[in-house]
């Protein structure tokens, strides 16, 4: 087990509980997605792993987060980064006044192996050929799709073992979303990278994941393999937008009851 969250509670500002008893397991090499509506606690879960809760006055108040067998609960973000967990934050946070090259090199700022860093730069260009032409450009003026390439490229420059992506497809055109997910798939295959991802685009995410968790109101209400999720009627109705042809849709009438059953 590469990453495991056991009964993790997260509280913001000492009073607002955002995550309740979350249990998440990520195996080496897997792509795991977290699904759920806004405010379900997905980003909080990711930040608990990468140690960035402090920036929002949050803290893990119970439970344990382990990476590769070592306890990383509440550890310093820099220490977690050094262990190989690299998070791409939501909202395309490039270092906007730096050039594309400088952004990529910030990803490698802890590495002393200059030749390997240059080789990794070439590998990033292999995945995102567009970036090579943009090297000298100021990152803040890139398009949304280019920024997302840069962010994933920057994360790869750190040679992560676990790549955490927070809504990589947000605000991208559908064709770009498909390309992005295909590239992420290639990277996973070639780098044998483990990916933990939050994604609103459930259809694209479920189709490519190995395992998924559905969150609601700070709890995990459903989890399963890709096949299990795709076969689940709740997931089909609420996340994939399918209403079985011969089956009457309870989408409106039973929504509340379903929620209650989940929360129980």
């Amino acid at each position, binding site marked *: 087990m590469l990453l495991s969250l056991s009964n993790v509670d997260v509280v913001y500002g000492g009073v607002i509980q955002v995550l309740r008893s979350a249990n998440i397991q990520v195996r080496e090499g897997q792509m795991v997605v977290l699904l759920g509506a806004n405010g379900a606690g997905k980003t909080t879960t990711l930040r608990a792993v990468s140690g*960035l809760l402090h920036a929002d006055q949050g803290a893990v108040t119970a439970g344990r987060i382990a990476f590769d067998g070592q306890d990383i609960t509440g550890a310093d973000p*820099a220490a977690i980064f050094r262990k190989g967990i690299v998070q791409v934050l939501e909202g395309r946070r490039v270092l906007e006044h*730096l050039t594309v090259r400088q952004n990529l090199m*910030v990803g490698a700022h*802890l590495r002393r192996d200059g030749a390997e860093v240059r080789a990794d730069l070439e590998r990033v260009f292999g995945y995102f050929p567009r970036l090579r032409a943009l090297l000298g450009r100021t990152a803040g003026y890139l398009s949304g799709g280019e920024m997302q390439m840069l962010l994933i490229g920057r994360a790869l420059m750190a040679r992560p073992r676990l790549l955490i992506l927070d809504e990589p497809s947000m605000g991208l055109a559908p064709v770009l979303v498909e390309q992005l997910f295909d590239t992420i798939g290639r990277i996973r295959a070639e780098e044998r990278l483990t990916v933990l991802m939050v994604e609103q685009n459930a259809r694209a995410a479920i189709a490519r994941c190995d395992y998924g968790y559905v969150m609601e109101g700070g709890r995990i209400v459903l989890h399963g393999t890709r096949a299990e999720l795709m076969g689940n009627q709740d997931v089909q109705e609420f996340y994939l937008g399918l209403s079985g042809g011969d089956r009457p849709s309870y989408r409106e009438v039973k929504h509340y009851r379903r929620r209650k059953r989940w929360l129980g």
Partner: protein
Amino acid sequence: MTGLIQILIEGVLVGLVYGLVAISFVVIYRASRIINLAQGEVLLFGAYVLWSVTEGARAAGVGLPLPVALGLTALACIAFGVMLERGIFRPLIGQSGFTIFMAGVALLILLRGVTQLLWGAQSRTAPVILPEGALTLGPFLANTRLLIGALFTLALTAALHVFFTRSRLGLRLAAVAEDHVTALSLGVSVRQAIAVAWVLGTLVATAAAVVLLSGSILSLEVAGIGFKALPVALLGGLESIRGAPLAGVIIGVLEALATTYLDPITNGAASGVLPYVAMIAVLLIRPYGLFGWRRIERL
């Protein structure tokens, strides 16, 4: 004509020294988003420490070789920079700009008091570190001390630019200058970066003290250079290392021209107020300065 060029030369040289002090503002501001109002007093502290380990030590009968004295001064200033960051500005991270501004005012007055307490209020002669005299360039004269200081400013600007864009530590500081949370997510220790920035800023201020004061009069008034360099830092752009010397030259030349042509008809007031007229103009017209970071708005 010769007179005008001579004035311009002096303006450029003095301006580059202002630029040096402005760089010390910029280095600290980039990492911590704090404008240290007491930067002139920090410079003053460096100058008095340098006096103590040179002239002071000689008077006490323990003459130190100059490199040792400079090394000791640098060490003391590093410790001082760390102390200011740890003791005052780190605990204030996350407080409002007004809180930090008032802390800066308090620090400014406090440091003047402490300097007066430790070294007394009398003026003294600062040690001669850079060669005295003037270099003759055809019909023009350039003060050797200022010329060396100006060249040092240019070299330091180039070196800092390479440092912030190429080196691993420099890129870390650049990431912190952009956004603290993003820097954290990339494994950068923001605290460490801010501490490094304060040390750098304090060292640059001390280097400026050496250039400004070598062989001239050291007194509490010297701290005023901080407020002269602040408009320079604003004009250049608070995030821009390369903007500082350029803005310094602009302010320096304007000041030199005002001294020659306007001071005789304004009872000497024009050159003194000119940097602050420039500062208000910058704040009104282009608050991020010539090369500062405007928030990039994308359509």
